């Protein structure tokens, strides 16, 4: 059989891709034998703790250690311990954030000094005997009135002002707000730093830890220590959830642990407790978005004018790229003749906000979709008809001037979601109806049933991979090493629960034509695996998976023709005997027709987009004003589900995080500090808060992704918040322009005579 023939057959009948193979690291996880960072104890290990600021802004006058306290056995580190060639900056986009404050603090809980001790109880006592004296300075706590801009971008297409000036144009405006959100991985941030990279006394450093991006940590550690790349080794341990919260923060924490380990000459473990994790680490950026839309009388969108602001917190961190993704997605999946988007990140004296699943797009698309329902209300149009009329189709042009050529499924996901949702609540489906109580009528009816009920819809899209030229700059590398009976994946993309190892192994097994269980994955250890880029931005399947697929294609060519597993093994052993080791490492290749300009913000912002539609049923208790989601449907186009159960899991999990953000998750800040920093009063959805989530996977293949796959991780969180406030409007006739939709906000909206 010729290679070409076999490939055609393969495309028709996939043996591994599209099947629910056994999760690569599943057995360890269900038996409790998977080792997370807090499960590891090294020889002669110390525990580390952080002295943090207790004011939002001010000058540090003195850092005092109680002279009456017995400091023996303690290691102390402050900014004086960071000496050239090391630099006291967390290496990210801007170099404005210190690892340890020098003479000023710019937010609450800012790290000032570090302590380590072998005994944790003693360590806590030591921490209580450190006193920082400050001269407080005025703090900016509200980003809506803040004046310092950390980053500004503008997107322009067409002449917006001319369209708004046209006679007969209807203009509708609205302002929308979203609150901060905590990633709330159940495993807190944690690392262990150990002297030595390859040998204990080689002057290098090794960090084991819970993280998404080992090579980000390497870069940060090279900067703070001044060590060359080969002396810094970072190993990801089994990671108990990330959601963006372990994208950039582990660089800070690893830097701290390394400073203590280098000074003490011993391994140092730093694992945050929940309270510290909540007050000190990054959150989703709060946002305020103003929309001005020009419409024709029939409801066609003519021009979109958006002003978008995010609360960056005290340092730049990743805010510029969060802003970029927020701005590019700010129109929602709708076409317009002219678009103008102004985006700004404002500086406040609050802990820096950062990466969280969706990366700005959930905020800007919440505004876009809540605004669509306002438009429908003001024009007296059906919200679904209004959407259908304006949704992107193949050939339409986005805000950045990108022509959508391939895999555009906005209409399809809308149809599929509506159809599925109707099936879930159809009156004759009595069993479902009785359980879900979601058809707008009495389900159990035992309480006199005065609850208000409504259904809302939201449309959204999400670009896969880094924005603009990001993937070209990353130049990610990944590959394969031949083993005696299969291959080992060499990739630094991390398994953080989403199924990276399983999905990558499937892509490679399918491409090589070998069984899934012949593919193993090397530990994500920067001493062993190439830099395949950060595990973020819905890029791990579409972008890194494609690199691995190309590596597998190349390896297959090197192995020569083989027909089955047996002849593969024969060839593999022969090649290994011949060459010793056989490794194929491939680098990212830009699909030929993608063009982007960072200067003008024009071009193909993303290689491909995932498309989504949510339908939510909500009921509101007329006495307590508590809103509850009772039935939820998500139809998401991801190109191809490499592993349908894992893909559904991503959609269900992301959806519930979106529902939590919409209804429950409220970060309460006072004097720049989170006041509800515990799971007792920062509420994430429990089983009882979770509606049935019905998932429709739509497969509109993208030619540039492995087996047609696009990104799946983030898209599902872009829609739920808008679907829920739109359902609240349907139930009450009142608009809610801010989330979370707490009972207080709903009560206020119901009392507002002007709202509709």
């Amino acid at each position, binding site marked *: 059989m010729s290679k070409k023939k076999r490939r055609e057959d393969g495309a028709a009948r996939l043996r591994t891709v599209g099947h629910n193979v056994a999760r690569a690291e599943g057995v360890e996880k269900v*038996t409790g034998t998977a080792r997370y960072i807090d499960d*590891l*104890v090294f020889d002669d290990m110390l525990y580390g703790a952080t002295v943090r600021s207790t004011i939002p802004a001010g000058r540090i006058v003195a850092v005092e250690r109680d002279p009456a306290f017995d400091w023996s056995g303690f290691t102390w580190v402050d900014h004086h311990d960071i000496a050239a060639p090391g630099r006291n900056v967390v290496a990210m986009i801007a170099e404005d954030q210190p690892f340890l404050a020098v003479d000023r603090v710019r937010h609450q809980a800012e790290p000032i000094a570090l302590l380590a001790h072998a005994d944790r109880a003693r360590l806590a006592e030591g921490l209580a005997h450190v006193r920082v004296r400050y001269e407080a300075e005025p703090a900016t706590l509200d980003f809506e009135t803040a004046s310092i801009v950390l980053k500004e971008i503008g997107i322009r297409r067409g002449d917006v002002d001319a369209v708004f000036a046209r006679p007969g144009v209807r203009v509708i405006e609205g302002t929308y707000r979203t609150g901060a959100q905590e990633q*709330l991985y*159940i*495993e807190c941030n944690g690392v262990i730093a150990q002297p030595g990279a390859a040998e204990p006394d080689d002057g290098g450093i090794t960090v084991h830890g819970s993280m998404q991006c080992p090579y980000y940590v390497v870069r940060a550690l090279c900067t703070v220590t001044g060590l060359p790349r080969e002396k810094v080794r970072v190993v990801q341990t089994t990671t108990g959830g990330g959601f963006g919260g372990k994208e950039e923060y582990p660089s800070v924490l690893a830097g701290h642990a390394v400073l203590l380990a280098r000074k003490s000459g011993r391994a140092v473990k730093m694992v945050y407790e929940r309270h510290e994790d909540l007050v000190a680490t990054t959150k989703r950026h709060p946002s305020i978005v103003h929309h001005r839309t020009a419409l024709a009388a029939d409801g066609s969108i003519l021009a979109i004018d958006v002003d978008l602001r995010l609360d960056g917190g005290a340092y730049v961190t990743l805010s510029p790229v969060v802003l970029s993704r927020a701005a590019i997605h700010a129109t929602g999946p709708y076409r317009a003749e002219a678009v103008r988007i102004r985006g700004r990140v404002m500086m406040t004296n609050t802990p820096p906000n950062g990466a969280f699943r969706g990366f700005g797009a959930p905020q800007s698309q919440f505004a876009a979709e809540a605004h669509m329902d306002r438009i429908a209300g003001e024009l007296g149009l059906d919200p679904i008809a209004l959407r259908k009329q304006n949704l992107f189709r193949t050939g339409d042009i986005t805000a950045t001037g990108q022509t959508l050529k391939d895999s555009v499924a906005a209409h399809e996901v809308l149809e599929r979601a509506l159809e599925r949702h109707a099936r879930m609540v159809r009156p004759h489906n009595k069993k479902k109806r009785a359980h879900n109580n979601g058809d707008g009528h009495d389900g159990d009816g035992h309480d006199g049933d005065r609850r208000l009920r409504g259904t809302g819809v939201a449309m959204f899209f999400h670009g896969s991979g880094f924005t603009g030229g990001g993937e070209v700059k990353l130049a990610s590398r990944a590959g394969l090493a031949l083993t005696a009976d299969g291959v080992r994946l060499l990739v630094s993309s991390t398994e953080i629960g989403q199924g990276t190892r399983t999905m990558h192994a499937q892509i490679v097994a399918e491409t090589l034509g070998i069984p899934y269980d012949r593919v193993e994955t090397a530990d994500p250890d920067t001493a062993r695996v190439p830099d395949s880029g950060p595990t973020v931005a819905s890029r791990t399947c579409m972008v890194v998976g494609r690199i691995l697929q190309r590596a597998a294609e190349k390896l297959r060519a090197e192995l020569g023709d083989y027909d089955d597993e047996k002849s593969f093994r024969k060839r593999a052993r022969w090649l290994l005997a011949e060459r010793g080791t056989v490794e194929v490492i491939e680098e990212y290749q830009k699909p030929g027709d993608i063009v982007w300009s960072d200067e003008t913000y024009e071009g193909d912002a993303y290689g491909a987009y995932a498309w989504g539609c949510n339908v939510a049923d909500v009921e509101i208790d007329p006495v307590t004003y508590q809103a509850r989601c009772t039935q939820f449907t998500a139809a998401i186009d991801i190109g191809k589900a490499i592993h349908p159960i*894992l893909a559904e899991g991503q959609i269900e999990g992301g959806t519930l995080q979106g529902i939590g953000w919409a209804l429950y998750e409220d970060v309460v800040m006072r004097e720049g500090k989170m006041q509800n920093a515990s799971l007792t009063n920062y509420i994430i959805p429990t089983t009882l808060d979770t509606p049935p989530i019905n998932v429709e996977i739509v497969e509109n293949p993208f030619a540039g992704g492995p087996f047609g796959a696009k990104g799946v991780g983030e898209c599902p969180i872009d829609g739920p918040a808008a679907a829920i406030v739109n359902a609240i409007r349907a139930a009450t006739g009142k608009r809610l322009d801010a989330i979370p939709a707490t009972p207080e906000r709903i009560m206020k909206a119901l009392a507002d005579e002007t709202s509709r």
Partner: protein
Amino acid sequence: MKKAKTKTNAKAQASAKAQANTKAHAKKKTKAARSPKITLRLNGKKAAVAAPPMKRLLDTLREDLGLTGTKEGCGEGECGACTVLVDGAAVNSCLVASCQVAGCDVQTVEGMARGNAKVAARLHRLQRAFLEHGAAQCGICTPGMLMAALALPKRATLDEIRAGLAGNLCRCTGYMKIYDAVAQFLDGERR
């Protein structure tokens, strides 16, 4: 550094755990005078541990008994990651003093699979259902979730499953796959 070099593979991690145990034992010796022995049944076997009476059961399990399958998520009884069974009832081991389990039957995730083997065939049916349905993603809530599910009544309906798992937070799955796995397990139990 040989130790550092091998730390990442499973064997080295097991050795790290073994070190944890020896260290814990060493610590135990120095405190033995003050810490009375607590005897209990642990995963079906008799066990004794010298731990301060008020030490959290979670810490005694993880540090003194080397059973790190039980996880800490919040330390205040909200997340359920530390759920274990005490005389068949699901409890948050971060809220239980070690002395409270003296004479009790304590079950942790380590007691589920037969023969402590890492092969799917030896797994408990509930563990297999979790694998099959994708109920474990990052896995940090899984041991606690498994314990809470074991405490459910055999005839639990979906609503009873939801109520029974309401003390166990999962941030990854949206719970749907967990219901699927638990329902399959309970269906099998009913047969």
